[in-house]
C-alpha cells in the first residue's frame, strides 16, 4: 500500500445556509479543497461523497454524480457513502484506500447535508433511521433518547455527574467562539447547560448539537507527490473503520461503543502509535455524553474516568489531550453527512498550525466519527509529512 497525504481541505461555514442547496454546499467545499491544494479539477479521478439524510430531507438522490457534474467532473467514478453520521469518515476512508491501493492518484472525499429547511420533528425522524426500526426505533426512541439512556447508565455505573457532562458543552461552546466556520459562537456556563430545556432526560438542549447545513471536502494523493501541491501536506498515518451493534439491546454494556474501539485499534496499529502520542482530537460529540464515552473508547482515559477528565480540564487547551478545539459538533454544528470530513478538515488546520484554537506543537491528530448509537465508526490518524 502507498502512503497517502491530504493536500487540500475545504469547508463551507456550518449553520443555516439559506439559498444554498445540498449540491451547492458540496460544490463549494470541493472547490475550496481543490484551490487549497492547487489541484486542477481534471486531475481528480474519483469522488466519494458522504451523505445521510439527503434523499429524505433534500429530496435528492444520485448525489455523488450530480455533485461531480456541477464540478465539471462528469465521467469519473462517483460513490455516495451512507453510514449514518459517520458517512463522511467512511467516504474519506475509501478515497484513501483508492489512492493507497494505486487505483487513483488523486481522489476527492467530501460530505454534505442540508437540514435546516426541515422541521425538528422531520429531522428527528430522519436521524432515527440510523437505528433499527423493527427492533428498537418503533418504540419511539430517538437519538437524543438513546444517548440519554447511555448517559444515565454512565452516571449509574461510574458516578459521572450531571455537571461533569455539562463541562463538555462549556468547553466546546468556548472553543466555537473563535472558529469562523462554527454555527454557535457564544460561550455557555455549566449553570446554563443544566438549566436548559430537557430534550430527552437527562439530556438537555445544550447537550445537543444544532440542526445544520454544511459541507466539507478533502483531496488525497500519494504522499511522495504531495509537496508538489501543498507546502504542508498532512500524512494519513492510519485509518480504521468498524461496525457495531445497531441497537442498545444488543449490547451487554451500553457505556462503550465497540465500533469505536475496533476502528481505533486498526488506526493505531496501522500508524504504529498509541493514544498517548496524540496531541489533539476531533471526536464525535453528537451529544455531550458521547464525547466522554469516545475519550474512554479511544484510550485517552480509563473507563469511567472521562467525566472527571473534562471537569478537571485535561481535555482543554494546555491539558493532556485537547478535544474538539474546533468547537465539536455541539458548537461548530452537525450537518450529519459532512461531519466526518469536517473533523478531518479541522485536524488538518491544526497540524498546519493555522487553526482557530491552535494547539501548540500539534504533530499528531485524530478524527473520530460515529454513526447512530455506535453502529459504525471511523478513526483517522494524521500527522505532518516528514
Amino acid at each position, binding site marked *: 500500500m502507498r502512503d497517502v497525504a491530504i493536500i487540500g481541505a475545504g469547508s463551507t461555514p456550518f449553520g443555516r445556509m439559506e439559498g444554498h442547496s445540498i449540491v451547492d454546499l458540496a460544490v463549494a467545499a470541493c472547490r475550496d479543497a481543490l484551490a487549497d491544494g492547487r489541484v486542477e479539477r481534471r486531475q481528480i479521478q474519483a469522488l466519494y461523497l458522504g451523505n445521510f439524510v439527503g434523499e429524505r430531507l433534500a429530496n435528492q438522490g444520485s448525489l455523488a454524480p450530480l455533485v461531480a457534474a456541477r464540478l465539471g467532473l462528469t465521467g469519473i467514478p462517483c460513490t455516495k457513502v451512507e453510514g449514518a453520521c459517520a458517512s463522511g469518515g467512511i467516504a474519506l476512508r475509501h478515497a484513501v484506500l483508492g489512492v493507497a491501493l494505486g487505483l487513483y492518484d488523486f481522489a476527492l472525499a467530501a460530505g454534505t447535508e442540508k437540514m435546516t429547511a426541515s*422541521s*425538528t*420533528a*422531520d429531522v*428527528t*425522524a430522519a436521524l*432515527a433511521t440510523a437505528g433499527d426500526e423493527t*427492533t*428498537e426505533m*418503533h*418504540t*419511539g*426512541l*430517538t437519538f*437524543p*433518547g438513546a444517548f*440519554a*439512556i*447511555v448517559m*444515565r*447508565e454512565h452516571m*449509574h455505573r461510574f458516578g459521572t455527574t450531571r455537571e461533569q457532562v455539562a463541562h463538555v458543552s462549556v468547553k466546546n461552546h468556548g472553543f466555537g467562539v473563535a472558529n469562523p466556520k462554527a454555527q454557535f459562537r457564544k460561550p455557555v456556563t455549566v449553570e446554563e447547560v443544566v438549566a436548559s430545556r*430537557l*430534550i*430527552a*432526560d*437527562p*439530556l438537555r438542549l445544550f447537550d445537543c448539537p444544532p440542526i445544520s447545513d454544511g459541507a466539507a471536502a478533502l483531496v488525497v494523493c500519494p504522499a511522495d507527490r504531495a509537496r508538489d501541491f501543498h507546502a504542508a501536506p498532512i500524512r494519513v498515518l492510519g485509518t480504521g473503520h468498524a461496525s457495531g451493534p445497531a*441497537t*442498545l*439491546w*444488543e*449490547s*451487554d454494556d*451500553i457505556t462503550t461503543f465497540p465500533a469505536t474501539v475496533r476502528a481505533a485499534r486498526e488506526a493505531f496499529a496501522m500508524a504504529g502509535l498509541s493514544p498517548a502520542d496524540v496531541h489533539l482530537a476531533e471526536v464525535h460529540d453528537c451529544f455531550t455524553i458521547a464525547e466522554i464515552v469516545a475519550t474512554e473508547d479511544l484510550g485517552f482515559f480509563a473507563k469511567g474516568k472521562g467525566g472527571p477528565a473534562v471537569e478537571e480540564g485535561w481535555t482543554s487547551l494546555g491539558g493532556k489531550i485537547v478535544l474538539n478545539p474546533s468547537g465539536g459538533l455541539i458548537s461548530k454544528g452537525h450537518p450529519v453527512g459532512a461531519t466526518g470530513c469536517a473533523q478531518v478538515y479541522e485536524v488538518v488546520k491544526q497540524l498546519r498550525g493555522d487553526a482557530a484554537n491552535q494547539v501548540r506543537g500539534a504533530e499528531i491528530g485524530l478524527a473520530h466519527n460515529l454513526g447512530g448509537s455506535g453502529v459504525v465508526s471511523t478513526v483517522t490518524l494524521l500527522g505532518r509529512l516528514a
Partner: protein
Amino acid sequence: MTGGSERQIVARLHGRRCSECGKLSVADGRCRLCGSERGEALTLSGNGTLISWTTIRIAPARYAAEAPYTVGLVELDEGLRVTARLEGEPERFTSRQRVALAAIDPVRGPIFGGA
C-alpha cells in the same frame, strides 16, 4: 402488577432460542443475532430489571402527539435485553429496579411497568 384485568391477559412475550448460535431473542421468526431459521419458540417471563431509561420530549413526527413518553432498556430474567416503552411516572424509576411486562402494543411493542 396493578394493571387492569384486561392487561393481565394481554401480555405474553414470545421469544426463541436459536439452535445455531444458542442465543435468545424476542422474536418468533429468524434469530435476530445470526439469521438462522432453526430455533425453538418459548414464552418469556416478562419479568426483568430496568437498566436505564429516558423521557422523550422531542419525538419523531409520527409519535409527536404522544410526547412526553418514556423508553427504557430492560434486561429480562432470561438474560436478553429489550428496548421498550415504560409506563408509570418516570421520576419514580430507579436503575436496576424490577419491572414487568404490562402490555404489548401492536406498533410500539412491549410496554413495561414497575413490578
